[in-house]
């Protein structure tokens, strides 16, 4: 589903009236009322179109000289509800109100329409009064709701982002779409002897790193906490105990400074990182996020409103596979750079290691999913067999062939997602992007298929606070209300929950 928002004209009246009468059984506006609304100079009506079809509309009224705006109406076709179209429409209207220098937006909503009320609350609307029996002939009360656009007037909010979902403690600061600071403290060295991230060790390191990382970020940005407009924090997905350190810290900082807090999704943050690199995110895009904790393929039609998980790993993350294979080969942790180094001298076609979930029967059910567990075992068997026979084998060939198998599956599935959905863009994120062969094959395959490839700088690909800050800034600029202080750390937060 791809939705286009476009300004309405009087020519759209017949289509709008069809939806109006279908949506508002007893209290639809007469055609003449709607005609004058569309024609008026002080109104702003928009349509949501799926292809040529009208699936929703909404309107705003703002009289010149007044600093108040009103949401006049909003409707989404019944079979298209719950897909985020209402949010898209509200987004556009609140942005328009901000552009017209409104300080407040008002609206009325049926007391019995809790779905609409929930949508408005998402945009910071609060009930300020009730009009008794406003909707006739049903005799239903109207709630009067209002939202303040004070923070939204700030076109370029300064946002501090806190990230502790795995083994990097990150604090980043942005102003609007501009990166001001990105400080990362990694506990990677402490995990080295274990060959993988130990959650308890990561969580301990987060607590130790919190203060120095914050101090350094403020210093780098040359700001004090007073300059910050809002705080953003990762509340999932990730390691629960690690997430809780950042969540506890961020909430207390929010209370202590009185700054609003935004709880945001780590994976969506990885996608948002591209904004830091080039000032905007071009959508739609396919995003391939590959790290020690995640291997996810996303279809991003809109960063804040429409992110879909196409597939993910069903066992090990790709980065984890690199670490495990590195151990099998007697290489050190983290495995990615080590395998990259050794593989340079090897032949990637020497051993044909299995490509997980690429057989026709798997492709039916797991077209965009990944599996690296079988590959890891195949490498281990290969090495153990050679060792048991006291045969010489080339570590370089094994490393190169293993790496080729991982990269092959990752890029093939990402490119086929681009083709399947007609999306001419691929964005890479996550720590495994550091892998030279991954970038090389991505470049070749994207060029061959007419796909634009985006790879942000490595400091923005690995886990960091700046990508959390930039996602917070996008939410603020889109007029989203802050999160309530009671959100939780959610280790399995779905990618569809951009803000908690």
């Amino acid at each position, binding site marked *: 589903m791809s939705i286009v928002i476009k300004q309405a004209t009087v020519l759209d009246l017949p289509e709008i009236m069809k939806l109006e009468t279908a949506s508002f059984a007893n209290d639809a506006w007469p055609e003449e009322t709607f005609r004058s609304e569309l024609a008026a100079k002080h109104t702003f009506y928009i349509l949501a179109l799926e292809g040529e079809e009208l699936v929703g509309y909404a309107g705003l009224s703002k009289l010149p000289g007044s600093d108040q705006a009103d949401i006049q109406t909003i409707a989404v076709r019944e079979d298209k509800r719950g897909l985020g179209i209402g949010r898209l429409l509200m987004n556009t209207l609140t942005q328009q109100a901000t552009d017209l220098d409104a300080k407040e937006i008002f609206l009325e909503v049926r007391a019995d329409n809790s779905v609409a009320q929930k949508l408005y609350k998402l945009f910071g609307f609060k009930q300020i009064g009730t009009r008794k029996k406003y909707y006739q002939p049903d005799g239903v009360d109207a709630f009067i709701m209002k939202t303040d656009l004070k923070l939204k007037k700030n076109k370029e909010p300064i946002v501090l982002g806190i990230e502790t979902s795995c083994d990097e403690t990150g604090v980043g600061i942005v102003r609007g779409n501009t990166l001001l600071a990105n400080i990362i403290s990694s506990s990677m060295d402490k995990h080295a002897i274990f060959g993988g991230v130990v959650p308890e060790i990561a*969580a301990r390191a987060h607590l130790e790193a919190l203060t120095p990382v914050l101090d350094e970020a403020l210093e780098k940005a040359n700001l004090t*906490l007073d300059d910050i407009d809002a705080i953003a924090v990762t509340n999932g997905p990730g390691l629960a105990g690690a997430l809780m*350190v950042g969540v*506890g810290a961020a909430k*207390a900082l929010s209370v202590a400074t009185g700054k609003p807090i935004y709880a945001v999704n780590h994976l969506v943050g990885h996608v948002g990182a591209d904004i830091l690199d080039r000032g905007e995110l071009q959508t739609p895009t396919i995003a391939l996020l590959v790290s020690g904790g995640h291997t996810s393929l996303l279809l991003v039609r809109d960063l804040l409103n429409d992110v879909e998980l196409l597939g993910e790993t069903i066992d090990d993350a790709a980065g984890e596979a690199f670490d495990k294979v590195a151990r099998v080969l007697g290489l050190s942790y983290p495995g990615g750079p080590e395998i990259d180094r050794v593989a340079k001298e090897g032949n990637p076609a020497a051993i044909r290691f299995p490509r997980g979930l690429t057989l026709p029967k798997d492709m039916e059910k797991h077209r965009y999913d990944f599996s690296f567990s079988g590959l890891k075992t195949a490498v281990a068997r290969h090495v153990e*067999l050679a060792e048991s026979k006291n045969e010489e084998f080339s570590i370089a060939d094994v490393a190169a062939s293993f790496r080729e198998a991982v990269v092959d599956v990752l890029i093939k599935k990402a490119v086929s997602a681009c083709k399947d959905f007609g999306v001419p863009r691929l964005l890479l994120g996550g720590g495994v992007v550091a892998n030279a062969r991954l970038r090389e094959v991505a470049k070749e395959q994207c060029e061959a298929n007419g796909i634009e490839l985006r790879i942000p700088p490595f400091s923005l690909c690995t886990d960091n606070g700046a990508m959390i800050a930039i996602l917070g800034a996008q939410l603020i600029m889109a007029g989203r209300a802050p999160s309530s202080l009671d959100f939780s*750390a959610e280790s399995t937060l779905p990618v569809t929950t951009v803000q908690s």
Partner: protein
Amino acid sequence: MKTSAASTRMGEHSLAIDTSAGTTVAVLSMGTVLAELNYLEPMTHSERIGSAIQKVLNDAGLKPRQIGTVVAGVGPGPFTGLRVGLAAARYFAIGAGAELVSVCSLDSIALDFYQANPNAKNLVVTTDARRKEVFWAAYSGVINGIPQRTHGPSVNKQEDIANFIDLASHESTELGVRAGALGQIAFAQGLTPQGRNKDITPIYLREPDAVPSKGKKVSG
């Protein structure tokens, strides 16, 4: 600069935070509790902590910047929960420009016990450390508002505590950690020559239980 500003406010108003068991927070003025909130459930620290701090500040009628000292309960306690309060204490102190001090969480239980039992002599405090062990500490009484710890804090099997102290001469208690009591101890410590403990490293008492392994064979 920050230090002198804080020291003029030191002791006036403090915020105490402890998540070593449940979530407990309190606001105190000159060692007197103005507001306190106790959530006993052991799994909701990260959800509760923000609103809990906000609520005690509101109840006490204070703004964050009026807090001169943040008192952190440093455990011992189950690690995941314990860290939430310590992370919150650190960032609240930075945000409010307050000083940061620490108190052993078990000391608050001892203070409450002796206040309720002024004639009691020796006390052993135990809390659940999971894995069939307890965190514990022993006390001989309270002097100038400060519980006098004679053993611990340590982590042991309940039955092994007898190897360290004479259990027959120690009373025990069912009381739990309370932020108000932590704040009172920190205030009392501020009046002593030893002063206040500014190291807010958690008292873990156990190493992370990860063992470096050589990796196991996948083929027989």
